[in-house]
């Protein structure tokens, strides 16, 4: 696609005053890890639920020297990731990459890259529902009070009931975490497989929920604990398959129904997988 910067629009689409408003909200979010900060979310030229929060955060923090990576489901080539990457190419002209290591700014939906992120990188999550308690208490006027008082009894009872009924916690994604031992936070709909990557991550993690008009953040090296009980600690269960491209058994795998009637497994993180293939790994 030809890349020319869209005429008549400010760098990164939003006007500077709006960016400043968002950055102020982000500073507050970083200062209070895991706390949801209301912000004057703008109408974006992308549908609500498709990453309007993420692109507002990215637009507010992106600079001309940034190298941007956009992933959806771990892949740079899913249609919505392509669309968002093109949007920023058109409105900023910044360099984009699919390589996790090369990126300074990564916007993601539903995954954390397998390649460990490093200090100086920023990970922006698209968040459909920032309120971790919404299924238990839909009224935001009430959940605000519960967070304020650190009153998470509802959530503990929910997790306990899962254990009592199923013997396991019925949250395979969007598994709630506690940040810096204070706020219960939604990690966005990443698989619980990815939750441990948030703990003491050297990169800055920013979360944007456009429709719900909330931002939150986890500063680098912050404690992030998945909610659990002493006698039922949080754990990730191995899926027991290997990637058919790179042979990895430890990364998160997509399950693909093949035309041959067989089920195939490949890395969800396409950059991670390509990297391993380049290094000579292959399915055994």
């Amino acid at each position: 696609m030809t890349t020319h910067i869209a005429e008549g629009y400010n760098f990164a689409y939003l006007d500077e005053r709006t960016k400043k408003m968002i950055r102020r909200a982000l500073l507050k979010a970083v200062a209070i890890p895991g706390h949801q900060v209301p912000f004057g979310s703008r109408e974006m030229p992308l549908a609500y639920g498709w990453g309007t929060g993420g692109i507002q955060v990215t637009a507010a923090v992106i600079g001309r020297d940034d190298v941007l990576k956009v992933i959806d489901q771990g892949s740079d080539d899913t249609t919505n990731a392509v669309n968002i990457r093109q949007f920023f190419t058109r409105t900023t002209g910044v360099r984009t990459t699919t390589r996790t290591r090369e990126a300074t700014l990564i916007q993601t939906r539903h995954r954390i890259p397998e390649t460990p992120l490093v200090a100086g990188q920023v990970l922006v999550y698209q968040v459909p529902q920032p309120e971790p308690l919404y299924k238990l208490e839909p009224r935001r006027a009430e959940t605000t009070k519960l967070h304020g008082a650190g009153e998470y009894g509802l959530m503990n009872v929910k997790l306990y009931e899962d254990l009592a009924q199923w013997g396991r916690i019925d949250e395979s994604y969007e598994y709630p975490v506690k940040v810096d031992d204070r706020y219960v936070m939604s990690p966005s709909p990443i698989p619980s497989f990815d939750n441990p990557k948030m703990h003491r991550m050297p990169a800055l993690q920013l979360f944007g929920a456009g429709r719900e008009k909330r931002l939150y953040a986890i500063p680098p090296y912050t404690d992030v604990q998945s909610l659990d009980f002493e006698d039922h600690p949080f754990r990730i269960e191995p899926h027991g398959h290997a990637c058919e491209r790179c042979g990895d058994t430890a990364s998160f795998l997509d399950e693909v129904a093949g035309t041959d009637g067989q089920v195939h497994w490949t890395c969800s993180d396409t950059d991670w997988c390509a990297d391993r293939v380049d290094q000579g790994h292959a399915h055994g």
Partner: protein
Amino acid sequence: MYIAVKGGERAIEASRQLLAAARRGDVHVPALQAEQIEQQLGLLVGRVMAEASLYDPRLAALAIRQACGDAIEAAFLLRAYRTTLPRFAYSEPVDTDRMRVARRVSAIFKDLPGGQLLGPTFDYTQRLLELGALANGSLTADAAAGNAPPEHVPNALAQLAREGLVEPCLPSEGDPDPPDITRDPPVYPLPRTGWLQTLARADEGWVLGMGYSTQRGYAHTHPFAGDLRSGQVAVELVPDELDFPIEIGEIELTECQMVNQFVGSAEVAPVFTRGHGLVFGRGERKAIAMSLVDRALRAGEFGEDASSPAQHQEFALPQGDSVEASGFVQHLKLPHYVTFESELQMIRKLREDVHARAAKAAEGDLE
């Protein structure tokens, strides 16, 4: 083995081209001009402007054409444009008593100052399809008969308000500086100024359904359409350089002042109360429904039992935003492979647990 991991970019490009072709339709049929939409589909233009919170009939018409006539998609296009516009100033409150009314009816008095003026309405059309016009193509309209619209039509509730039978029309808490719901994140409970803004740009179907629910037993409000009017209203603002308002133009508005019987409570003496609806264009259906919902949402103010959806702000308001709802409902078609894979694994494990327990129980039975 082949698993597609590339091709998103090319697929998107092809999809855009297909959409352009679908939008144009048969090229032997003349292309629609935005001006035709503006002139001949005025109610749709009004609806799109209302749900976009942007009064610009020409751009709304352009958006409608670009959206293949989908009202919500058109409102979305217009909102995405609106967000880039700077705010020059805030207007003075519009005075609907000074509306140049094209239509004004009151259901509570047979006749009243300013009179009953039907104006252009579907109400008495008998709804027979114009099959003849389909055959000969063109529509004609005779020059409308009638007098020039009156310049000042006092509100039908004014006299009752003077007698104290209808609550006075007082500025809500927070006036004259209401929150701007398109700039300030909502913090519930919203003040009335906030919920009226939310309803004014809410999906017409949602507001209609919520209003209708109050007529079917979910928070009955004993409504009477006191004053229903539509027409042109002057917009005025006071520029920094002047200390008096100047008129900058006119907008078409429809307003409904609903009168609601109220028998009084421990806090408030019996009095007729009000519900208010105000929308861009000739959105009469929405203005009426909005006034029902507005009154229902005032339950707390009158010490009424809030037991129905229309009385609960956090139910009646945020779910009614057409662009937000449309985006989030439709985001379900985006890939969810990762979350679904996580769920697959969870369900498999839960089933293994259940089967293991069943097998164990069966062994026990055999023993």
